[in-house]
């Protein structure tokens, strides 16, 4: 197991040390990105070891001498020194990496200096995002790798988020790194045409990372929120770079802001899901709604109408709780466009829900029946919903089928509540 694995545990068990876990989360990935960009993909572990070692030195030194005035600057200085020392003493490095570094840095700079300026950190992080989100790895592996390398999450947190065991995650991350090495993926800032080719994969991975947090089955709310925040931070990094500040990037950001605005309202005290209709609107975060609106307006340039635009549009209308014909006509139109753009069962079902709001339950029932998604519990839940108030016996029958097909506890709870409401 690598050093950072133990560090995660170490920091999170030290109650009096709030600062280091915080810095670990924010600074670890910055320094790793800069080092990886400098060393190249083949020496990713050396980069990780240097940064982990830096944090270990910090926790030892600060415990004895107290926290320095500027902890971040302290970490950067120590990381720089450790890098220099490493370069000096390690002959393997001399022969293997120096040629690569020479390739990446100007020749008139004989002394290798770790550039931890804001600009270089931002550039390196962007380069790392594009490296990590390389389609040579599966989406699942990309997300795990992103959490590890881009977000500074430890193995145990990642396995918590995926409800998987540490060994599996550890292997998944290592295989993903090996794959990047095999494919000889360069860590470099993408140019405009590379951005054009690759941005879809990058946005998709970031959105999956966000969804992992938002819809995760994990009961750890703090961790789930962290995942969402990290996905938003990565998107914001893309927005800050001219090449990647595209309409669809802003649309994705808007979408995540709108969703996040309901984060506190959608789970109860015991971690149970609170459905949209039952949410306490005063818990919605107006600041995030405003930011979402801002990014949505920034996204409406050019000719691109991505699925993120459509989903952000739908999420925007959901920030207005009051039902109105205008609201649901717009939502239906957006769902029509979304399902035409890309088929998915959940969008098909949501579209039909919107149709019920616009055209009434009877027309929607005819439409749902055509969908024929007979192995999907949401399908039966939707039918149950549509038959509620129309034919209670049928509604009950559908909810019961849904209940028998549902797998997670939170899904079962939602269905059971619907059944209670019927009786």
């Amino acid at each position, binding site marked *: 197991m690598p050093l950072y694995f133990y560090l995660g545990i170490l920091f999170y068990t030290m109650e009096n040390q709030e600062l280091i876990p915080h810095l670990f989360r924010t600074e670890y990935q910055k320094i790793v990105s800069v080092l990886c960009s400098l060393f190249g993909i083949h020496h990713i572990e050396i980069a990780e070891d240097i940064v982990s070692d830096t944090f270990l030195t910090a926790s030892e030194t600060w415990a004895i001498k107290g926290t320095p005035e500027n902890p971040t600057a302290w970490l950067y200085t120590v990381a720089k020194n450790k890098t220099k020392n490493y370069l000096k003493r390690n002959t393997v490095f001399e022969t293997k990496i120096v040629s690569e570094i020479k390739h990446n840095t100007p020749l008139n700079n004989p002394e290798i200096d770790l550039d931890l300026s804001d600009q270089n950190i931002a550039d390196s992080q962007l380069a790392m995002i594009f490296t990590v989100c390389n389609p040579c790895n599966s989406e699942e592996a990309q997300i795990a790798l992103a959490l590890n390398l881009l977000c500074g999450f430890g193995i145990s947190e990642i396995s918590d988020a995926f409800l998987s065991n540490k060994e599996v995650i550890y292997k998944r991350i290592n295989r993903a790194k090996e794959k990047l090495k095999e494919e000889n993926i360069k860590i470099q800032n993408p140019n405009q045409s590379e951005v054009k080719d690759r941005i879809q994969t990058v946005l998709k991975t970031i959105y999956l990372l966000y969804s992992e947090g938002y819809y995760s089955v994990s009961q750890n709310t703090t961790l789930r929120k962290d995942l969402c925040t990290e996905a938003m931070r990565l998107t914001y990094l893309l927005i800050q770079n001219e090449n990647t500040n595209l309409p669809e990037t802003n649309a994705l950001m808007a979408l995540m802001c709108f969703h996040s605005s309901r984060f506190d309202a959608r789970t109860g005290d015991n971690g149970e899901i609170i459905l949209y209709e039952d949410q306490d609107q005063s818990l919605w975060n107006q600041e995030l709604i405003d930011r979402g609106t801002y990014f949505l307006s920034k996204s409406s340039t050019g000719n691109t109408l991505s699925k993120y635009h459509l989903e952000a549009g739908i999420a925007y209308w959901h920030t207005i709780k009051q039902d109105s014909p205008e609201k649901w006509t717009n939502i*239906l*139109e957006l*769902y*029509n*466009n979304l*399902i*035409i*753009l890309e*088929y998915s069962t959940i*969008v*098909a079902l949501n*579209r*039909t829900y919107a*149709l019920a709001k616009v055209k009434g339950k009877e027309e929607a029932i005819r*439409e749902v029946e*055509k*969908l*024929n998604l007979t192995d999907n519990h949401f399908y039966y839940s939707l039918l149950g919903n549509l038959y509620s108030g129309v034919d209670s016996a049928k509604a009950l029958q559908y909810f019961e089928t849904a209940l028998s097909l549902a797998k997670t506890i939170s899904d079962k709870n939602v269905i059971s509540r619907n059944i209670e409401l019927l009786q």
Partner: protein
Amino acid sequence: MNEFLLIFRRDFITKETQPSPEELQQHFQQWQNWFGSLAAQDKLARPLQRWDGQGKLVNSKGVTDGPFVEIKESIGGLIIIKAKDYDEAAEIAQGCPVLHFGGNVEIRMAV
């Protein structure tokens, strides 16, 4: 599952039978809901494609700009859908909004 070409035709020329702007607006929504419904059933075999309304006609005499007065019904659009057989394709086509304005749908199965 087979693929079927659905060609929508209607009279775009005769003034008296043309829809009003309000009707057109509503008509547009009907199309959109119909496409949405097909997509929700995963029946679209290809992404939707918009086509220019005017077009050109080529014959041995040369090239003429559309719309073509000698052909009363011109193509409004076409889509390719997935369906089991002609019966299912015809059933789907019966929901097509072009029928509301006296248009028709020609169906061809891909072979």
